């Protein structure tokens, strides 16, 4: 271990690896605040680890872990004071990037005419997300594809995204419902971050290996006392990730999954899952890639002032697919099928990647514990329908 020394800003480069000690973690948070970022990160609230504004290191879930399985999420205490000793909770970063309720514009109508006023640039927030897991980085990149890389751009999302500072965290443990390894989205953080941390706990040593991802990251990090990472540190981090990969709670076979779902629109498994699914929409709310929204147009009592708001919506609602007089997806069966087929199959045709990052939230937060990996496996195991016509083989 080398001695602690503050290295001059110019010296820190992208792809450098350094180590910061636990005692200095607060200085990293301070550096973020000094650079004008509002730090959002994990904290314990109402029996879960959620994402909220953080003011100090003490806000983090020190020494907490979580136990997750189908339809179950519980916090439990660790026997150490790890800052990031858990996986993901009911919140995802879309709560801040693609907020549940946004005002899009206001309009006024009076004697002089009608005016449409776009959302003021007032709250163009500058967030720093602390503790972004590999699966979540992928989820953010997936939402980027939807909201920034199509024919149209969501200006609100764009500004929130441009100002975003990302401190990623490599997972030191795999959750009971995690299957990022199957989806190729983790557990190792590979790109899309400003800084990536791996928490190293060994005996009474507590430090963080920090990988520098961007110049911006280097700049923020430079103020925090750090030393160059030694091989031992890097080895420890590597072993941790290998352990995590080996202990994934779930698995999903993605081989040919698009075609599998395309040729099984009438598979009996859909009927089976419908016996349990409540169409409660929890899965869509906790899923980090679900992006569906609806628009609400409201007016005040005078009728002179109108607003348009955008709010999260879910394909599980009956109204979601309503057209003149009825809903296209009137049965819960068709709506579950829509969600799962979209997530694992049609998403690929739409955006070039799977919509699922293997975070397992939908499994934890489903009140009846429906497990997407089990459903996919059930369809695969009795997929006796071999493609016979072009139609069944899927879409061109």
């Amino acid at each position, binding site marked *: 271990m080398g001695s602690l020394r503050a290295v001059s800003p110019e010296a820190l480069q992208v792809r450098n690896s350094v180590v910061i000690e636990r005692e200095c973690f607060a200085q990293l948070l301070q550096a973020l605040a000094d650079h004008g970022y509002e730090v959002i990160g994990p904290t314990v609230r109402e029996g879960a680890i959620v994402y909220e504004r953080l003011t100090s290191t003490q806000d983090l879930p020190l020494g907490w872990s979580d136990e997750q399985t189908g339809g179950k999420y519980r916090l439990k205490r660790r026997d150490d004071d790890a800052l990031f000793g858990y996986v993901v909770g009911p919140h995802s970063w879309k709560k801040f990037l693609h907020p549940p309720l946004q005002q*899009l*514009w206001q*309009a006024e*109508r*009076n*004697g*002089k*005419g*009608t*005016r*449409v*006023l*776009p959302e003021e640039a007032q709250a163009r927030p500058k967030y720093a997300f602390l503790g972004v897991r590999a699966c979540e980085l992928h989820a953010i990149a997936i939402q980027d594809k*939807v*909201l920034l890389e*199509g*024919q*149209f*751009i*969501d*200006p609100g999302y764009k500004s929130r995204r441009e100002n975003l500072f990302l401190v990623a965290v490599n997972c030191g443990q795999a959750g009971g419902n995690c299957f990022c390894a199957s989806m190729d989205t983790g557990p190792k953080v590979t790109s899309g971050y400003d800084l990536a941390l791996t928490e190293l706990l060994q005996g009474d040593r507590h430090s963080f290996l920090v990988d520098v991802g961007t110049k911006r990251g280097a700049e923020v990090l430079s103020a925090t006392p750090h030393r160059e990472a030694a091989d031992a540190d890097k080895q420890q981090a590597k072993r941790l990730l290998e352990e995590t990969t080996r202990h994934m709670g779930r698995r999903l076979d993605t081989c040919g999954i698009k075609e599998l779902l*395309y040729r099984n*629109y009438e598979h009996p498994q859909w009927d089976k899952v419908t016996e349990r699914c409540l169409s409660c929409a929890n899965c869509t709310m906790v899923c980090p890639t679900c*992006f*569906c*929204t*609806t*628009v609400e*147009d*409201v*007016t005040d009592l005078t*009728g*002179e002032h*109108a607003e*348009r708001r*955008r709010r999260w*919506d879910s*394909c599980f609602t009956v109204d979601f*697919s*309503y*057209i*003149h*007089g009825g809903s*296209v*997806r009137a*049965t819960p*069966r*068709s709506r579950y*099928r*829509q969600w799962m087929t*979209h997530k694992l199959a*049609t998403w690929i*045709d*739409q955006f070039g990647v799977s919509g699922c990052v293997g975070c397992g939230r939908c499994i934890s937060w489903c009140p009846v514990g429906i497990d997407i990996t089990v459903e996919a496996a059930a369809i695969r195991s009795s997929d006796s329908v071999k493609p016979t016509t*072009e*139609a*069944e083989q*899927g*879409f*061109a």
Partner: protein
Amino acid sequence: MLEQPEVVTAGLVPDPMLPTPYRIQRVKQETDDTFTLELLPEDSSHKFSFEPGQFNMVYIFGVGEVPISISSDPNDAPLLKHTTRVVGTVTKAMRQLKRGDTIGIRGPFGTHWPVEDAGGHDVVIAAGGIGLAPLRPALYRLMAEREKYRKIVLLYGTRTPEDMLYRHEVEQWRGKFDLEIQVTVDRAASAWRGNVGVVTTMIPRAPFDPSNTLAMICGPEVMMRFTVMELLKRGVTAERIYLSGERNMKCGIGFCGHCQFGPTFVCKDGPVFSYVRIASILGKSEV
């Protein structure tokens, strides 16, 4: 409502969710539940152009927004015509508007009828009910360059003669242009002297060469499916058949997710689809 002599639009952000104010020039009742709004932009310097088959999101102040196909002549842009049925809150409120009232327009969105690909071909236009509205701009385009196409056949079916759209105009087309127009209704009182039966029954004997035809179909989904079937039976190539689909839309720009139809978004991969693209999901229950 209140007097609206002038309009000011604030907003320099190129936000596709912001409507542009248009003023109603005329409200025309077409049938007992269908009407057409004729619109011009408030700001006379506002540029607007569209391709046949595209749609706008039409906003009624404080009430809401609905997607409606554009049914005016693309050459007349920025004049817009929207024909719609009264089916819900927004269209009901729209029906109450009068000449001089303001509405908001976002668009044009979506894919268009492949009129440019029909050069040198026979063209079959099959319309059912209000489906003639999104096809009318294509007809205008075809008539404007009549010499590029061989036979043009319009097959139009409605529920009853009273439900026919643009009757007067259709008669004019019959007289003025080299178009074969065949009209049918599902049922009629004895005063009707024309065809009675679903529009698909006109396909077997319509005067076009299936080996060299491009077809554009718009109407209720079941009508479109059976029309495709008849066209295929007659030997029209699947790759040259186009349909206009419809689904719930909240944004029109591919963000809200409501309009998904299999792997397609009707607002950006449609509403005009080539038949081959959606053949495997067309008619699938609850997709």
